[in-house]
């Protein structure tokens, strides 16, 4: 191992340690707050408010504490396991952050109710006020876990190749291709059928739940179909993947940020699954297991895109990167 790799490994270890500390903070805060406020809390805790008025729900102080502490502890353990796995599993960075947000929210929920109760003479007089604002800390904690964790090196196979198109300095080149994913179209069709059933249910039995269900299913189906036909463009500006239906850009990598583009077999498991994925390995559009391009970026995560016959777009991208390097010296 070179000294540069040693330095990088040491830096990653420090980042993982700090992320672990962030993940433990909610549980620690819950215990500290419970110890500090314990003497001021009676047997009852205001636990539910409907608006800014007096509380309309109460719970046993220490019974609720142990329940919230147990949930926070389990979520903290999940976050720590995910933090420990970040160098091996693509999904672990995202799930560490999600577990961090959930544990932070759980701990904060009890802290807020205890704080409001302790500040009032009686639990029935407790008011939330602006205390709910500290829920922001829970989200910030999850974000800190995500940002602190080092991105996993792109899972590039040993058989990956980096073709390059021979290109004269004055040549202009553009590659464009449209791809459609059978898996995503099928998923969209199934989603559409389920939406129609939900719509019929919403019309037959109008209620908040059935209407929200139908709207959520419609949004889910639309977002899947949005990803089904996409256009990949490689040119002097960089690499862009856009939805054909809405012409919305899904992935964009500027040419000056591209380090290299390799042709590889994209394994959905290594990139966080199917569809449009953000994971510890990077950003990915995965329509199936199979050939694709992996773009390694300067100072950023890798980007993977599944595509039939990826050799030509990869060759064009590498040629443009080389042409740009020559032009800028």
């Amino acid at each position, binding site marked *: 191992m070179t000294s540069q790799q040693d330095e990088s490994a040491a830096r990653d270890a420090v980042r993982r340690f700090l992320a672990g500390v962030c993940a433990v903070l909610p549980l620690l805060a819950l215990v500290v707050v419970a110890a500090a406020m314990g003497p001021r809390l009676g047997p009852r805790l205001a636990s539910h408010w409907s608006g800014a008025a007096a509380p309309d729900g109460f719970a046993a102080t220490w019974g609720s504490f142990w329940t919230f502490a147990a949930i926070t502890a389990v979520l903290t353990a999940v976050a720590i396991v995910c933090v420990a796995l970040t160098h091996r599993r693509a999904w672990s960075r995202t799930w560490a952050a999600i577990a961090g947000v959930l544990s932070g929210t759980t701990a904060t929920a009890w802290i807020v109710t205890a704080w409001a109760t302790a500040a009032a003479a009686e639990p029935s007089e407790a008011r939330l006020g602006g205390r709910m604002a500290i829920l922001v800390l829970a989200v910030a904690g999850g974000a800190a876990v995500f940002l602190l964790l080092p991105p996993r090196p792109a899972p590039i196979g040993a058989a990956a190749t980096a073709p390059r198109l021979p*290109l*004269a300095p*004055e*040549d*202009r*080149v*553009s*590659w*464009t*291709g*449209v791809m459609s994913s059978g898996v995503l179209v099928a998923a969209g069709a199934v989603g559409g059928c389920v939406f129609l059933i939900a719509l019929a249910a919403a019309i037959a039995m109008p209620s908040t739940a059935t209407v929200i269900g139908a709207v959520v299913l419609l949004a889910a189906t639309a977002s899947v179909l949005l990803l089904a036909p996409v*256009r990949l*463009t490689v*040119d*002097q*500006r960089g690499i862009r993947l856009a939805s*054909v239906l809405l012409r919305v850009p899904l992935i964009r990598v500027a040419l000056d940020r591209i380090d290299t583009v390799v042709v590889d077999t994209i394994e959905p498991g290594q990139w966080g699954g199917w569809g449009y994925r953000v994971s510890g390995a990077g950003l990915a559009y995965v329509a199936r297991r199979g050939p694709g391009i992996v773009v390694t970026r300067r100072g950023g995560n890798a980007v993977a895109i599944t595509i039939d016959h990826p050799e*030509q777009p990869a060759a*064009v991208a590498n040629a443009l990167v080389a042409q740009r390097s020559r032009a800028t010296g």
Partner: protein
Amino acid sequence: MLIRLTEASPASFAEQIVAQVRLGVARGEVRRGERLPAARELAASLGVNMHTVLRAYDALREAGVIDLRRGRGAVVVGGDVPAVASLVESAAELVSRATALGISPGELSTLIRGMA
């Protein structure tokens, strides 16, 4: 579909675009019913004037390769007949072999014109 424009070619940029779209269709890289990039988008992609791409799209429409409709853009409606598509493919291969031998497209063009 790859579009590559070279200054060294005796053909104009619009003619190069036409030839390469026809080659892309002949090779099946662009299928019937597929929409080509909008003229403005392709022009930005290649760093050429939009009117160059519009001229190329007009020529492709006249050749029956694409259909241009307001709001739908350039849609591939058909390629060359198989014999012509095969000729386009052979021409591309010839250019590629000539380049490998150090013969520029301009020299090759002169060579072919001399044989006609």
